[in-house]
């Protein structure tokens, strides 16, 4: 079974910019993808401090791909793509 690894940023910037709702998102994702998804919470992914990227927080990292404006929709879409990719 293919498995996707998701890292959700819990750093200060991401948290303030919407990461506080991540708990909900994580819960929903776990229900939706069950065993196909491994979720990890991490500290600052260092994306927020890159010049203009600030406004795209909160960030997540999906199998090594940095994703801005992370929310349930954006993340679901990418995970589905990755899962159906082969």
């Amino acid at each position, binding site marked *: 079974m293919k498995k996707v690894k998701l890292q959700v940023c*819990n*750093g*200060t*910037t991401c*948290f*303030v*910019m919407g*990461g*506080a709702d991540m*708990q909900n998102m*994580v*819960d929903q994702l*776990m229900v939706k993808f069950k065993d196909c998804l491994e*979720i*990890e*919470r*991490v*500290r*600052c992914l260092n994306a*927020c*401090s890159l010049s203009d990227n*600030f*406004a795209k927080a909160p960030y997540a990292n999906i199998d090594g791909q940095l994703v801005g404006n992370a929310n349930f929709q954006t993340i679901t879409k990418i995970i589905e793509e990755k899962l159906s990719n082969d």
Partner: protein
Amino acid sequence: MFIDVGCYQLKKYNQNAFGDDFVSKREKSGKILAVLSDGLGSGIKANILSTMTSTMLLKFMQRDVPIREAAEIMMNSLPICQVRKISYATFSGVDVDAEGQVRVVEEGNPSFVWIKDNQLQEPEFSQISSPSFPDRHLNIYEFKALLGDRLIFCSDGVTQAGMGEKDYPLGWTRENMIEFVLKTVQNEPSIASADLAKKIVERALKCEKNEQAQDDISCAVMFFRQPRKALVFTGPPYEKQKDAEYSRQLAMFNGKKAICGGTTANLVSRELKKTVITEANANMGTLPPVSYMEGIDLVTEGILTLTRALEYLEQGRLKVSDAAGVLVDFLLSSDQIEFMVGAMLNQAHYDPALPIEIEIRRNIIKKMQKVLENKYYKSVTIHYV
């Protein structure tokens, strides 16, 4: 030797101000000064009398004014009650230096209790009386306290609790309080001063009819013990080359260790080659959750958590279960706290697009030092790295 100071107070039932006042100050020299004062009556009037008395006495002690002179000035300057035509506030003042040399002056309060090796001590004292108030006597004690000793001060609200009730015709009494303290200390030899003070006051309240305090009930405890040390590393060091050095300092620290800050946690993790783990379903409330790292007692997010922890400390909210609450617990279970504060600014936090205002780390830590010293009697040092 560290002197752990703790106090717990209850107001008289239905009053909106404390009639007793307790103040304590840790001097740079390592000396500790403390005063417990009980104002005549209760409520605001008593509050003013006791606060004036304790504040004045503390100032006098700080300046080494001879106690007799200090007491005269205080008794002369208190406002006079319109009803009873007297002005009055009893007090106990104590002054302890870093070697454990203790000096106590008492006027009107129940005599303090000194416990050593779980036994009551009976220190000698001398008495002087006031030239202008002949019925007021000051008891003066001088002795040396050693590691493990405890001193307990209380207002008569403790010893007279329940007075007149069937089971306590004379109130709870000092003897019963001593017995209670000995038993408590025997069961919990390392009980912190704040906890012991709270237990004494709560036990006294049980003697009162319907458990409603008929007087202000206050208790202050001093415990001479080996200091419990803690180090909090927060914020990345100004010079990146020093990351390794400070991480090592943290790892080698002899005491409890905490990291407050994601970037800081990441750099320590990199230098010490230890991973940081956050549980995916950790309970977080409105703060990023607590994480774990081998060899470190606590890892939290930085600015938001520190800001919230400061709020809890200032408001006395000590039983919250989010990350800030855990941090508060960590701080309060230590005596000597050292903050290692990285001076590098996290630019992202100061971006005008951020929807909330984030305070500069340094300010928060400075405020935290203040509240930890003044309200929780901790000894705090800060150094910037």
